């Protein structure tokens, strides 16, 4: 298995723990990740501003991976959704692909022929690596952990963009991945709720109302941590957690962990190898397990 690792804008700056854990777990599980330095923004922020430019930015990244002959493995759910959507659109519509390619060629000297696929890392773990291989590779007991899975939105919606690999109303892939490493995935109210990251820039106070509800509900359900698969969801739940606590005069102190960090610890990687020191809200339970 070989993929181009698509970092996007947020993960390599704001979620180095996620990137580290993804690289080290992939290596442990026999997935080769190739870096393509020319990758830039996926186009997501421009979908609201200028549809055509967003499509060109996506096509540019798709072309870069295609030149290397590899599919894309993305860490950010919004990048995954944006690139996969553009990919489906360009693959299905020959005329549009030609006109996009004419502009892409003129501006960047590249063309996209429509030959690659885009996958989120968690989906690759779930589908390509598979739960059995993950279970077999686990060496550390995480059975004491009660975890709240947060799927986020662009990891699985819209379903046609993600080949309907999971059910948007009652998703299961992340629960199964959590269970595969021996931990318990608990039910909590509002599991499918959005992190609010999409409107953080437009209206911060409104945006922070969304993670407040999720944190409240996960804590009420007795979660030891929230498990995420997107760096922007992490910004909302972890980096903004203290501010939300201040705004609403409450206390959550809920650790937030990226799934590959959890996986890495189960596979016997060290706390440093999964970047655990970079997690802002410390999990006493996790630290005890790795010590």
């Amino acid at each position, binding site marked *: 298995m070989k993929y181009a690792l698509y970092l996007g804008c947020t993960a390599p700056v704001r979620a180095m723990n996620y990137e580290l854990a993804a690289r080290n777990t992939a290596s442990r599980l026999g997935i080769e990740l190739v870096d393509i330095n020319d990758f830039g923004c996926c186009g997501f922020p421009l979908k609201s501003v200028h549809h055509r430019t967003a499509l060109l930015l996506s096509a540019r990244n798709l072309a870069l991976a295609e030149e290397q002959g590899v599919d894309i493995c993305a860490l950010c759910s919004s990048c995954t959704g944006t690139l996969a959507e553009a990919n489906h659109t360009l693959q299905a519509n020959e005329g549009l692909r030609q006109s996009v390619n004419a502009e892409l060629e003129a501006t960047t000297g590249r063309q996209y022929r429509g030959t690659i696929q885009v996958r989120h890392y968690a989906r690759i773990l779930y589908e390509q690596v598979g739960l059995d291989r993950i279970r077999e590779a686990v060496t550390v007991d995480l059975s004491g952990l009660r975890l709240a899975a947060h799927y986020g939105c662009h990891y699985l919606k819209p379903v046609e963009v993600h080949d309907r690999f999971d059910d948007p109303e009652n998703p299961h892939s992340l629960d199964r991945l959590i269970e595969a490493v021996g931990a318990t995935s608990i039910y909590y109210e509002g599991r499918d709720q959005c992190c609010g990251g999409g409107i953080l820039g437009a209206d911060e106070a409104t945006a922070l109302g*969304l993670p407040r509800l999720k944190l409240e509900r996960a804590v009420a359900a007795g979660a030891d941590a929230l498990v995420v698969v997107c760096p922007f969801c992490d910004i909302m739940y972890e980096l903004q957690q203290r501010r939300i606590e201040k705004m609403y005069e409450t206390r959550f102190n809920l650790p937030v962990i990226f799934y590959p960090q959890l996986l890495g610890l189960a596979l016997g990687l060290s706390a440093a190898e999964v970047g655990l020191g970079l997690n802002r809200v410390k999990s006493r339970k996790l630290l005890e397990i790795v010590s």
Partner: protein
Amino acid sequence: MDSVVDANQMDPAFVSEIAAEPGGEHIRRCFACGTCTASCPVREVTERYNPRRIIHMAVLGLREAVLSSDFIWLCSTCYACYERCPQDVRITELMHAIKNIAVREGHIHPSFRAQVSLLEQHGRLYDITSFENERRTEQGLPAILERADDFCRIFATTGLDALAEPEETGVDG
């Protein structure tokens, strides 16, 4: 919310304008059931955002009121309504279409203008300086070099360069 709708403010061509925009094609399918609003996580925390109301305003042709509003920028793009809509109105994409028209009419939200500027200057939403690369090196991660040239050329071709701010700004997560 206020008010009686003023028939003189209704632009009957607005719905066609939206339907001609990528993502807006299915607007006429809406039968106003409200599943979108009931599913909306933003509506759960504020009454200022109500997708059924926005679609209804658009169908009535309240062009200026919709395009100049703040509320069209409050869609978090979660796709909950998109998945549940019984009429396949594809509301998330419909909201993108409405925002694209708003931008052309000069109503770009300042936070999005800031993002356009960052992308034109850096090719990324977060600037990568030597500070970020030092931190990455400390963690054993490869350095990242900014490659904004392609972005400048793409933005110049599509006209997006005109939307960028004259000076550098930052977004903070």
